[in-house]
Structures are given as structure tokens and as C-alpha cells.
């Protein structure tokens, strides 16, 4: 039986990770030694049975990684000890289904569909990241019939070599930043999705993964290609248990949205409070394409993540909605970037961040419009809610506009919970804590309500739990 999500607070206080029962069932078959060098990379590639070009790609990326400096901006990454990490672990039982380990919100989705614990044909495929390999994996019959590919990235490399090679690394090249270089060298797992022309996938495809053993690094690599006129919603929600030494999660997500296609990529991240979560996510949107990033950051010690959209061709639309919750000892450094490279493109960035108990929430964003990108409309709204004097909130937005035929607007507000609002709610019989919780939920609601219902329910519950004991 899966156990509902508990708050990080409870986990760190008790050191109790029994909430994550799967942990004790794990037996790792192959765990690389700690640290990184070319031998380990060769071994990873050999174990996976990869073609030569991928090994070359990895080795080249490793060189780039070594050559790049740590970023001089952003969160404090001094706690990362690159030598003290396992870069690859392959579990013993490949492709075994483990229903008990499925997080509640995903189970609830299945329940909603009236599907008991077995799979039915309605079920869209689910891949579960587990010790760097996709082991829980199934593809519904009708999806496969429509020509939809939903596999682990490792399998896709083998099964669809041309399609894979054509697009892999084209949206986020290894040289993009130090962490995309690292990922390019040691990537393992992640999802590969191809949606053929005109195919609309009604149900969200879901994936989840977790960091499990001590000093385990997660380097999954996801590649989604939505061909012309297609649409897909991919949901990634993850949980992680507590452990003593720090953990590094450095993923790369590349998305290609072709002409007239639509992709929504939803993430709820709730890594435990010792994880460094450094993710590069970028989408390339072509003519009249639509890309929507919905990003919720609740966990981790440090998150640095700026989903990006490159509006390459006329009529493309981009939307980024970001919710960040930073509590004690956390720094959520999130936001979004949009590049307008073509005329008649539009974008919206909405960011809501909450900080409490000394947590630090940062919005970092960029809107860039190049010369010739006429008739561009873009709007950025970032709001921050600070729940106490120990917390910290930052906003670092930049607008770089080189074309006159545009309408660019940005606004931001920072506030604490209003005395008047609190009093009003309390005068209706609520305790101070209930009132504050309602206000926080209300603040986050515009973004939460864009989530699939099951996730929204879990997230609201989580926020409410976070608020217990936080007032007074």
C-alpha cells in the first residue's frame, strides 16, 4: 500500500523514511564507483550497449564539462562534491511492475478512470525512473497503434536510431552549461516520446522517478518530439527519501514542437531536502506551435531551473507557469526564459513564489525579442508571498528588446499575508493558521488549478501540511 506524501519537516525530524517502503526492497546490481572519469563513462556506454556515436558524444561532453566553470550566479552550489557521487546504478529486476511504489496522485488517476490495480487498455504508458533505469513501463495498445512512441530514452536509442539521432542534443547541446554537459556525459533513463502528425493524446502521459541509494546522482534525459498538428501532455512528479549525504539531480529535457503542435510539460518536484536539483529544460516551437511549461518546485535543498521556450517561427506561442515554495534550508531559484525569434509570436510567464521559515525563493527570467520579430506580445507577472521576517524573496527579470513593433509588459509584487485579510477570515471563525493556509492556497491557486486534478489535490494538501505549525 502506498503511503501518502509526508512533509519534509516530518521526515527530517524523525529520520523516518518508512513512508517510502520501496527503499528497503532495492538491491542494486551494478553501482559504479563514486566519482567520474572516462573509464566510468565507457563502462556506462558498454553496459547499455550503445552505438559508437553515443559514446563519442558522451566523451566529448565530459571534456566540455571539465572545461566549464561553475556558474557565478544563482544559488550556492559549493556543497556539491562531484567525487562523492555514484553516476550510474542499474537495478537487478528489469521492467518489473511495482504497484506499491506508485505515488498516491498517480494511483488516484488510475482510480479516477475506474481502473483497479491491473492495467487496462485506457491506461497511457508510464515509465518510472528507478536507479537510473526505466523499470516500470507499459504502453497502451491504442497509443502504439497510433504510432506513438513512449519508451525509455535508452531503449529509444536502440529501437529508433534515426529518429533519435536526428533530434538528440539539438535543443540543449552539451556546451550549453556545465550541468547539461555533465548530463550529456552520464545520462541514463528518462523518457523518449514521439507523437506522429495529427495525433492527439487525450490522457496525460506520466512518469515519475526517485533517487534511492546514498550519493546517487540522477541524470535522466528526456526527449519529446511532437510532430505537426499533434498534441500531448506529459506529467512528471517525483518523490525522494531522506538520506545523509547530498545528492545531485541534473536532468535535461528537450522538446520539439513542430508546426501546429501543442505540448504541455507539467512537473511537480518534491525532492528531499538534501538534493541539488539543477535542470536544463528547453523547448523549440515552430510555426503556430504552442508550448506550455507548468513547473512546481516544492522540495530539494537547491533547485536551479529555468524552463525555456524558443519561439522560432511565426505564430508560435509560449507559456510558462512556475510555482515555488521555499521552506527552511531551501533555495528555489526558478523562473523561465522566452526568446522571440519570429514575428506574430506571443508569450506569458506567470511566477508565484512562497517563502517561509528562512527559505529563499528566487525568480530569474529572461524575455528576449530580436530585431525583425514584429508584432510580438509578451507578459510577465511575478508575485511573491513572504510568510515571516526570516524568509527571503528575490526577483531578477530581464527584458531585452531590439524590435519596436512589440508590446512587452512586466509586473511584480511582493507581499506578506495582510493583517486585514487575516482578521477578516478569522472574524468568520477560522483560526489564524487556517486563515493563513487559505490565503496561501488562494495565492497559489491560479497555477495549481492548471494541474491534473489528482496532482492539484495532493499539492493543496501538501501546502496545508506545510502551513501547520508555521503560524504563531
Amino acid at each position, binding site marked *: 500500500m502506498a503511503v501518502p506524501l509526508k512533509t519534509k519537516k516530518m521526515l527530517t525530524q524523525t529520520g523516518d523514511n518508512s513512508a517510502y517502503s520501496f527503499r528497503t526492497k532495492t538491491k542494486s546490481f551494478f553501482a559504479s564507483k563514486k566519482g567520474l572519469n572516462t573509464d566510468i563513462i565507457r563502462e556506462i556506454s558498454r553496459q547499455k550497449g550503445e552505438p559508437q556515436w553515443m559514446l563519442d558524444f558522451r566523451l566529448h561532453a565530459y571534456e566540455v564539462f571539465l572545461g566549464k566553470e561553475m556558474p557565478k550566479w544563482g544559488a550556492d552550489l559549493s556543497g556539491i562534491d562531484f567525487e562523492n557521487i555514484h553516476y550510474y546504478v542499474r537495478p537487478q529486476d528489469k521492467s518489473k511492475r511495482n504497484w506499491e511504489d506508485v505515488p498516491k496522485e498517480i494511483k488516484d488517476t488510475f482510480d479516477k478512470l475506474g481502473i483497479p490495480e491491473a492495467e487496462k487498455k485506457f491506461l497511457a504508458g508510464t515509465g518510472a525512473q528507478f536507479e537510473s533505469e526505466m523499470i516500470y513501463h507499459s504502453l497502451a495498445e491504442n497509443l502504439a497503434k497510433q504510432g506513438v512512441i513512449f519508451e525509455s530514452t535508452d531503449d529509444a536509442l536502440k529501437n529508433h536510431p534515426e529518429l533519435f539521432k536526428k533530434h538528440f542534443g539539438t535543443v540543449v547541446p552539451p556546451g550549453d552549461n556545465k550541468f547539461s554537459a555533465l548530463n550529456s556525459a552520464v545520462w541514463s533513463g528518462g523518457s523518449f516520446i514521439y507523437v506522429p502528425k495529427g495525433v492527439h493524446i487525450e490522457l496525460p502521459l506520466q512518469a515519475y522517478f526517485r533517487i534511492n541509494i546514498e550519493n546517487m546522482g540522477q541524470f535522466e534525459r528526456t526527449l519529446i518530439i511532437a510532430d505537426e498538428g499533434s498534441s500531448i501532455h506529459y506529467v512528471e512528479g517525483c518523490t525522494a527519501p531522506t538520506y545523509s549525504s547530498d545528492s545531485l539531480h541534473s536532468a535535461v529535457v528537450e522538446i520539439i514542437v513542430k508546426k501546429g503542435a501543442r505540448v504541455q510539460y507539467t512537473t511537480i518536484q518534491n525532492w528531499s531536502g538534501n538534493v541539488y536539483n539543477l535542470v536544463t529544460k528547453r523547448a523549440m516551437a515552430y510555426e503556430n506551435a504552442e508550448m506550455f511549461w507548468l513547473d512546481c518546485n516544492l522540495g530539494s535543498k537547491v533547485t536551479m531551473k529555468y524552463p525555456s521556450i524558443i519561439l522560432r517561427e511565426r505564430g508560435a506561442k509560449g507559456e510558462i507557469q512556475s510555482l515555488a515554495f521555499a521552506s527552511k534550508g531551501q533555495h528555489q531559484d526558478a523562473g523561465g526564459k522566452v526568446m522571440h525569434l519570429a514575428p506574430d509570436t506571443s508569450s506569458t510567464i506567470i511566477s508565484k513564489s512562497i517563502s517561509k521559515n528562512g527559505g529563499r525563493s528566487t525568480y530569474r527570467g529572461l524575455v528576449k525579442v530580436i*530585431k525583425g520579430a514584429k508584432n510580438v506580445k509578451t507578459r510577465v507577472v511575478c508575485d*511573491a508571498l*513572504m*510568510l*515571516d*521576517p526570516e*524568509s*527571503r*524573496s*528575490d*526577483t*531578477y*527579470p*530581464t*527584458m*531585452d*528588446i*531590439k*524590435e*519596436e*513593433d*512589440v*508590446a*512587452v*509588459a*512586466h*509586473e*511584480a*509584487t*511582493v*507581499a*506578506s499575508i495582510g493583517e486585514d485579510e487575516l482578521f477578516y477570515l478569522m472574524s468568520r471563525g477560522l483560526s489564524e493558521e487556517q486563515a493563513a493556509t487559505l490565503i496561501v492556497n488562494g495565492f497559489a491557486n491560479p497555477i495549481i488549478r492548471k494541474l491534473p486534478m489528482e496532482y492539484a489535490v495532493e499539492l493543496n494538501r501538501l501546502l496545508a501540511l506545510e502551513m501547520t505549525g508555521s503560524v504563531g
Partner: protein
Amino acid sequence: MSQKILFLDTIPDQTITLKSDEEIFVVGLITTGWPGIRNLVINAQGRGSSCMCIFFILGTGNSSFDAKIQAIHAAPKTQIKARIRSALTDRSSCSIEGAWSIEKNASGADTYFAHHTLLLSQGASAKTAPFLEIKTDDVKAGHAASVGKVDADALFYLLSRGISEQQARALLVQGFFETELEAIDDEEIKNKIREAVITFLSQTK
């Protein structure tokens, strides 16, 4: 707010430190650009101090207006507000970074930064980065920025009343700056600014 106005014709490399309960009002009418980046620091060190800055930037030719304005709230109940409006034509460019910070001991801070830009030609460009760092919760803070050309709907509305396109654009550019003039009491300064806008308009196509 007492209107003892410090009237500038540029954004200077300067640090303004505010003592307890000190209030200053800075108005800038800026028509000449400069090389490099200017750094203006407003340090509200004294409890209850406040500073209001209103900058009018009119860019022509190849002028470049590049500045970092730092506002530091380092004492309780301080206020720093900056409102910048720029209209750029020809190949002029304006890049403003607003580095606003509210320190832990600056409870009761009230702060605002706005940078609105009108681009009036193909070659003009703007960059705006209103940064905000807040380390305590009892604050009122906000910022706003916008970049764009003259609003097409407003333009059509005015044109439909019979005035020429040149007149309509002129009215909209004047209106763009006029909204900030309300906060300034000094008539002489207001007129200087209005005249500068008219001169600027005569230089645009």
C-alpha cells in the same frame, strides 16, 4: 513629501546617502547619452528616510543610456521609488538595471521601481532588468516594466477624430510622459520637460 527637487540632466555616477527622516526628490530630464554604464546608488540608511526619482529619457541619434540604479533599504520605514520613462528613436538604446534590495533590518519598507519605454523607430532598442532582493517580510514592494510602440488602438481612436498621424503620435508621446508630471509640483521644471518633449518630437520623423 517636501518638494526640494534635485534636478539632473543625466544619471550620474553617484551615491546618495539618506539620513534619518531625510526626504529627497530627484527629477532627471535626460536627452544626451553617455558611453559605458553609470552607477547611481541610493542608500536609505536613516530610519524614515525617503527618496522619489522620476527620470525622463529622450533618445535620438546613436545615444546610449546605460545605467545601474541601486536602491538599498537599510533602516526601518524607508521609502525608495523610481519611475523611469524613456522614448527612443533613431538608433538610440536604453538599458536600465534596477538593483533594489531590502535588508533584514528594513521592516516597513515601501519600494517601487518602474521603467516604461516607447520605441519610436526601427533601430531603437531597450533592455530593462528590475531586480529585487527582499530579506524581511513587512514590506510593500513592486516593480513594473514595459516596452512597446505607440498603442495602435489609442492611435486609431485619436486619428478618427480628424487629427493627422503626426499630431496623434505626438499627443501619445506627450501623454506618455505627462502621466509622471502629476507628481511634480514645480511648474518651471514641468514646463522644461514638456518643452524638451516637444523638441524631441520635432526631431523624430
